[in-house]
């Protein structure tokens, strides 16, 4: 094994065999240690939320990762490779520049499959909305589908005033029927006030740099086809296995979905809707 140990000899057999063996061991150990060191550096640099979203996005099924421009009909088939962060996406800028008049004229606001979609708000793919608030701040709340799903939360874990939020990081947590749900932050910024479902908004945020970068958010017009798709996916996920996929052709959604579906179904649908696989 080593020079000086009984049985070792400085011959070709020992040098080649043990040389290869030590090289393999060195590669394995170095790679493992490197991963551990980088993980430690990530924790120290506060990248946990960023990596949590990175890992979660990678695990989303392809039906959850469709590009916003596919949903608005600007492209036939395109999966997002940018973790829903259009700020770093070169293709997004091209799509916006080429956007046709028909797409620009899409109606905004109103109701989609029974869910309210007010104009004047911007929507995040994790079912939060952002609206302008006084003093250069932003209101952040759950959209109507998210609110119907969670209903009245059993427990709400909001960040304290002064906490910093990273876009696509955890904004707050909700507990409902024993299930923990993570809600994604739509923008980067500092929490200046906290609200709750009764107030209609959850957080008030002062965006980083004063001016919010909202290129990753959907306008109400863009949000319409997206929300319709989300409702369809939710209905398919909740369909009776014996019946198979089925879509409602009328009616209105119940106020608190968590009361009429099982905890297992709620857990599954919340994972899908709030992008936490």
């Amino acid at each position, binding site marked *: 094994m080593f020079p000086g140990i009984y049985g070792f000899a400085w011959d070709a057999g020992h040098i080649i065999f043990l040389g290869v063996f030590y090289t393999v061991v060195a590669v394995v150990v170095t790679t493992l240690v490197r991963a551990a060191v980088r993980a430690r550096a990530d924790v120290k640099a506060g990248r946990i939320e960023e990596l949590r979203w990175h890992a979660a996005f990678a695990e989303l099924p392809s039906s959850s990762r469709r590009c916003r421009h596919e949903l608005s009909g600007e492209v036939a088939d395109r999966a997002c490779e940018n973790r829903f962060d259009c700020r770093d996406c070169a293709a997004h800028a091209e799509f916006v520049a080429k956007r046709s008049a028909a797409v620009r004229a899409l109606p905004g606001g109103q109701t989609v499959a029974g869910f309210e979609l007010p104009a004047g708000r911007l929507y995040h793919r994790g079912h939060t909305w952002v609206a302008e608030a006084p003093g250069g701040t932003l209101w952040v709340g759950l959209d109507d589908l998210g609110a119907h799903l969670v209903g009245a939360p059993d427990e709400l874990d909001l960040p304290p005033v002064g906490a910093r939020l990273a876009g696509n990081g955890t904004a707050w947590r909700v507990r409902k029927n024993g299930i923990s749900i993570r809600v994604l932050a739509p923008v980067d910024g500092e929490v200046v006030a906290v609200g709750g479902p009764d107030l209609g908004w959850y957080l008030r945020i002062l965006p980083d740099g004063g001016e919010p970068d909202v290129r990753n958010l959907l306008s109400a017009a863009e949000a319409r086809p997206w929300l319709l798709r989300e409702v369809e996916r939710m209905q*398919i996920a909740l369909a009776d296995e014996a019946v198979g996929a089925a879509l409602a052709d009328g009616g209105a959604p119940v106020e608190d979905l968590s009361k009429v579906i099982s905890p297992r179904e709620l857990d599954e649908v919340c*994972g899908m809707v709030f992008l936490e696989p």
Partner: protein
Amino acid sequence: MDDALILRGARRCSAGKFLAWLAPWAALLGVGGFAILQCLVRGLNQTNMDNRFAFGLWIFLDLTVIALGAGAFFTGFLLYILRREELRAVINSAVVIGFICYSGAILVLMVDVGQPLRAWFTFWHPNVHSMLTEVTFCITCYLTVLAIEYLPILLKNRQLRKIPSFLVFEFELHKVMPVFAAVGAFLSFFHQGSLGGLYGVLRGRPFAFREGISIWPSTFFLFIVSAVATGPAFVLLTTWLVSKLSGKRLVKPEVFELLGRISGWLLVFYVGLKSLDTLVWLNRTAPGVGANPGQFFAAQPFGIWMLFVEIVLFGAAPALIFLSRRGRAGTGWLLAASFLACAGVATNRLVMTIQTLVVPTLKFEPYALYWPSWQEVATFLAVIAYGVILYSLSFRYLRLFPQERELQRG
């Protein structure tokens, strides 16, 4: 009861039903544990191995599971090095299967070699001229690599991933997986070969002895090719089996089709090599060492039919099914071909391990048959039970098939 551990969106049976499924396997593991204890405490006299049959059921099991476990390294190689992204659908399952196969093989080797507390001796005073030393080093290293590859799958468990340092470590480990895939491929390539080479260099056993290239007999290459050819077929077979037992669609049909096609082409290559090797062995190698090839197949039940079964029925037939478009399109045909291919590699390892020793090497020696003792069989079954239990736990609590949730939603 254990809902908090089950992945979001994964539909699993109740905890009671799951425990009822595990119970008989745990009982089998218990009986096997008792047999292992007997062998370790009392020695190999608890087995039916003797000076003639120094290799028995356990070595056959080792060689077979290591060949079938090749699906892990080969799938990793195809995915991370050759970028066949379709195989991401089965890579986690292949890694778990590989880990089970290799850890099971090492468990049995520990009983077979005995004195596990002195295992370090092999590493401290290695005989670098022995094929077995290379096998020992490679298998130990590769099991370590498989354990590292298993780690990110484990850390993705619903509760474990809540721990921030685990989440980040899993993320960083995932980024360096191609390095481990490459190291795994290198190690597997050599130890599969050395296991074959071990037989090929047995000059005193003309049934196994082969010529080759430099220090490597032909069996070195045949073991590598047969393992990589059947590894994907075994991944296909186990995926289908898990799908049937759980009542869920786990991967898209295209993945089965791709695994079948890979196995098919490699099997064609293997059958060609094996046929050539057999012809050279029967007509040149065996007569060259004074053996009459006809004698090799004189002992029942190891007649000439065994050669036909191994090469034609378990080799050429599955290769043709895999390569025919119609064969790959039908699940029944794909499964039949996968089963035949896996049976083929098991037959080859049985022939090399047992038939090699059945054939006498001296004129006055009789043909001898070997039947394993109950301790050997119980240990064998314990490894199967260990594999089923570990795989069942992994399937229930970890994400082995990333496409599962999407497929279950139709």
